[in-house]
């Protein structure tokens, strides 16, 4: 039930944002600071999700070799940096995790 509530509320908000200026044309303008701040939403939100996924393991901060997700993630970051290719990054990261778990 909860997931439906989340989707409908999230959907209405998303639609509202897409509709906002198209509906209110001429009556509303985006302030310059907000316009600039919006550029930083993707790196900020995504990094806020990525870091704990890599560094936290079984409920605690884990910086040892046993944390295979951290090292697979670092490999993926390097691959993303050089290849700039999303699918290659995902595939190499998945394979790295499987191999690190075997070692």
């Amino acid at each position: 039930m909860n997931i439906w509530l989340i989707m409908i509320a999230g959907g209405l908000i998303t639609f509202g944002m897409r509709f906002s200026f198209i509906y209110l044309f001429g009556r509303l303008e985006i302030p310059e600071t907000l316009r600039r701040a919006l550029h930083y939403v993707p790196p900020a939100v995504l990094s806020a999700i990525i870091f704990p996924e890599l560094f936290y393991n079984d409920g605690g901060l884990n910086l040892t070799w046993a944390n295979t997700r951290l090292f697979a993630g670092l490999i993926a970051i390097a691959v993303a940096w050089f290849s700039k290719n999303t699918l290659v990054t995902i595939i190499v990261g998945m394979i790295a995790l499987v191999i690190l778990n075997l070692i």
Partner: protein
Amino acid sequence: MSEARRNFLEGVRAEVPLLIGVFPFGMIYGALALNAGLSNAASQLMSSILFAGSSQFVTTQLVHDNAPALVIILTIAVVNLRHMLYSASLAPHLKDLSLQWKALLSYLLTDEAYAPSIINYEKEGISTYKHWFLFGAGFALWFNWQVSTAVGIFLGTAIPETWHLDFALPLTFIAMVVPVLKNRPMIASALSAGLMALLAYHLPFKLGLILAALTGIIAGTILEKKQ
């Protein structure tokens, strides 16, 4: 061929190269949503209720982590804020349309529909049937997204547990974020958000995520102003 139809088909044609890139993501989303514990129906319908790729991935991750509903909804709002920019940018081109058209085109307004449409409008100017171009691009993407989600849900059930499919989510985010780290404010924004997320990890209700995101946004904006 009527003007409306010609513009619609032009929009579809402009969207095709983007569809090829988007299809695998729809599949990955479908498989991951299922893996995170969403039902088939919820996984599929999220693609038409939200119809916004990155926020669907984020929602999937947060549902997997048992984040509270309010935090997930707030995060969806932050992730999709950029759509207001698209709305503002297209508004002058769509100002003479009926309310129904405005609502329909707003629903279809994604990154991938916006990009070819604004380029076309700025190049060719606006005429009576130009909104059919955005409709064509938006509808092609919508249809592609629904089908690719369905294929992902279908294949998702066949993927074995030992593949650690849930790890594909942070990997997807890594692939999205690394290419935008082109200058110091961007890098500072990503690093400060990541560090704050680690420090604030134990805050209740996953509020650390919101706090970390705000930290990164503010850090990037301030550094850019200083430069």
